[in-house]
């Protein structure tokens, strides 16, 4: 008996979503197979790899990154342009760390102004992330949506608490893309997509953020949530789960001990930069083969590694 390739055909397919406008717009999703299972069917668009910047000085970031950005970080738009021109990621993810009510509490109006400047300064798509304070984020996203009208920005993300405001502004009043954020649970992901579509946001304007954790910090739940969501989207042809997934890996991996500990504190462990990249690359690779269609990273070396990996998997 000779070997025959084992093929699994599915009914379902992930929708295709476009981020940004013009020549540098990026399409994600469109696959009808598990990640890179080209022997089963079509693997869709290339996984998009974006880079994170923030609206304040990157104080807690690696020394190496603070140095790389020292001439640009005081002007967020210049920072965005620098990242685009130097590292050529697929998109920029601007996170409003400075808007956190427990921190600097930058007003939503100011965030909108910054977002607009950034969107005008770059050609690649813009993803905007909030503060994790859902009330504040609703205000930020409402203002940002208006200020960046026409740029087809992804607002990351609407949650169960604020989806009405974020969905109405981002997905209806202005035609942006709406992120739907749930906490590592297939049912919550499904429910939020249903709520957003009932509100009037079209499925093709939704991108899911289904939760993330650094490897070693509850990642087993992340991995299984991805598997279950994808198998339901393909195998059961569940339309309410056929949105592409974006995963902000860097938001998690730079906050755990393995990447935070200084070389003085842990002399045996070696270069902090290496450890930080390692954790980012490992987590990103793991979500990549679990089904993420877009990934947010912080370190240029991680971006290089993950893009090479994607290119060699397709």
């Amino acid at each position: 008996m000779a070997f025959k390739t084992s093929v699994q055909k599915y009914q379902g397919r992930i929708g295709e979503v476009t981020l940004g406008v013009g020549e540098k717009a990026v399409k994600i999703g469109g696959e009808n197979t598990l990640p890179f299972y080209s022997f089963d069917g079509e693997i869709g668009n290339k996984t998009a790899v974006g880079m994170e910047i923030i609206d304040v000085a990157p104080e807690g970031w690696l020394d190496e990154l603070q140095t790389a950005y020292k001439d640009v970080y005081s002007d967020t738009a210049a920072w965005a342009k620098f990242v685009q021109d130097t590292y050529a990621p697929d998109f920029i993810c601007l996170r409003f760390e400075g808007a956190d009510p427990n921190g600097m509490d930058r007003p939503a109006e100011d965030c909108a102004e910054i977002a607009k400047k950034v969107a005008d300064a770059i050609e690649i798509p813009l993803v905007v992330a909030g503060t994790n304070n859902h009330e504040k984020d609703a205000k930020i996203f409402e203002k940002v949506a208006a200020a960046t009208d026409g740029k087809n920005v992804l607002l990351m993300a609407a949650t169960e608490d604020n989806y009405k405001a974020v969905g109405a502004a981002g997905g209806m009043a202005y035609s942006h893309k709406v992120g739907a954020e749930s906490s590592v649970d297939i049912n919550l992901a499904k429910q939020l997509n249903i709520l957003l579509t009932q509100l009037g946001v079209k499925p093709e304007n939704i991108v899911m953020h289904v939760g993330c954790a650094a490897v070693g910090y509850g990642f087993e739940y992340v991995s299984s949530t991805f598997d279950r969501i994808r198998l339901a989207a393909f195998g059961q042809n569940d339309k309410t789960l056929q949105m592409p997934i974006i995963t902000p890996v860097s938001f998690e991996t730079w906050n755990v001990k393995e990447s935070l500990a200084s070389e003085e504190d842990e002399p045996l462990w070696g270069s902090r930069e290496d450890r930080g990249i390692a954790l980012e690359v490992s987590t990103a690779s793991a979500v990549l083969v679990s089904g993420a269609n877009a990934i947010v990273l912080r370190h240029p070396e991680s971006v290089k590694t993950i893009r090479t990996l994607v290119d060699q998997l397709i």
Partner: protein
Amino acid sequence: MALTGLDIFKLTPKKNCKDCGFPTCLAFSMKVAAGGIEIEKCPHMSEENLSKLSESTAPPMKALTVGAGANEYKLGGETVLFRHEETLVNRNRFAVAIKDTDSADVVNSKIENIKKVDFERIGERMKAEFAAFIYTGNKEAYIANIKAVLASGAELAYMVVCEDVAVAKEALELLKDTNPILHGATAANYEQMVDVAAAGKYALGLRADSLEDLYELTSKVQSKDYKELLLDAGSKTIKEAYTNAIQIRRTALKDGDRTFGYPSIIFVNDLAKDNKFMEIALSSIFTIKYGSILVIEDMDFARGHSVWALRQNIYTDPQRPMRVEPKAYSVNNANDESPVLCTVDFALTYFIINGEIEKSKVPTWLLIPDAGGYSVLTAWAAGKFSGSIIANFVKESGVEQKTKSRKLIIPGKVAVLKGDIEDSLPGWEVVVGPNESMQLPKFLKDLYQNA
């Protein structure tokens, strides 16, 4: 047609003697039917029934035992493709490549790294488990490397990666007490290789240019009645290795074809082409997608902290409690003046926090209420780590009798609970700690000095 647990049960001796490790013959039969164990594990089966069953009930993927003593490992034996279906049982293992082209200095440095990167994470030891001796033509250096590693005292299992039968035999002679893996049977040498492997009962790795050829080779080796096998997923391109690893596992588990029902070997180092971060990326994807032994170029903490943490997550066993018992734990010999620090009963959180307190050397009472076994924020969001739950547990746990200190440190991530707790605990001062555990040692030392 697959046999059911009951079909199998009818053919067991029905003695319920537990020699198979199961409480009853029926329980054992159910497990056999699920592909989780071999029928041969019942020592009391009649010859006749055994031969009836052994072919039809053999697990879809063979479990191999390799290495010896403290360095013995099980590989394979998986029954599902996704971890939400059932626990994955035998975690993948890492082999550091020791090549005959490595200088003595390089070999020594690799050995030192293997010894150095050896730590505990959440109660589990993390270290590189294998040395993979790779032969490319220099026999003298090859044998010298094996001797150097053996003499180094590094705790390892071994893999002889060598297609030259005569050299392999010599290498195996040095390693014969360690139950090594022999890797390198090809279409050209497999008959001799099978003989060598069978003589020592060593697990044998098979290698071919394509999946079709590998399938043919495996069929031939199986027909020589040797079934202690590993399959090399290939290392020409990343795409090929990924495809092959998935095809091998799927063919066995989904299609029930035992020709591919063996653990895999993936030479991640060759695929990564001397790029450490690519090696980490590939080690991660093959930890999720079906690598059993991953060969890497070298070991350091960047690799260990990331990839082994991922592996620990993917192979968590839901059967082993991930919770710790709610109570007031004494850390660093807490006494009647030590402050109280509060966290949740999620094992991961407990191990991390306990480790950091130990590192600070500050005597501390670690108070752990019943928080549903969740992480700090998960428990808080689920209403299982509220101000009243913490306040009540301060009273119930008796910690008020154990220490005169009335300082209660709470995780920074639940700073909002401060007011609630203080309202229900007159006389106590609630101190909001840092967000991340790694800031705890400094925080505790400062607190201690100012006390």
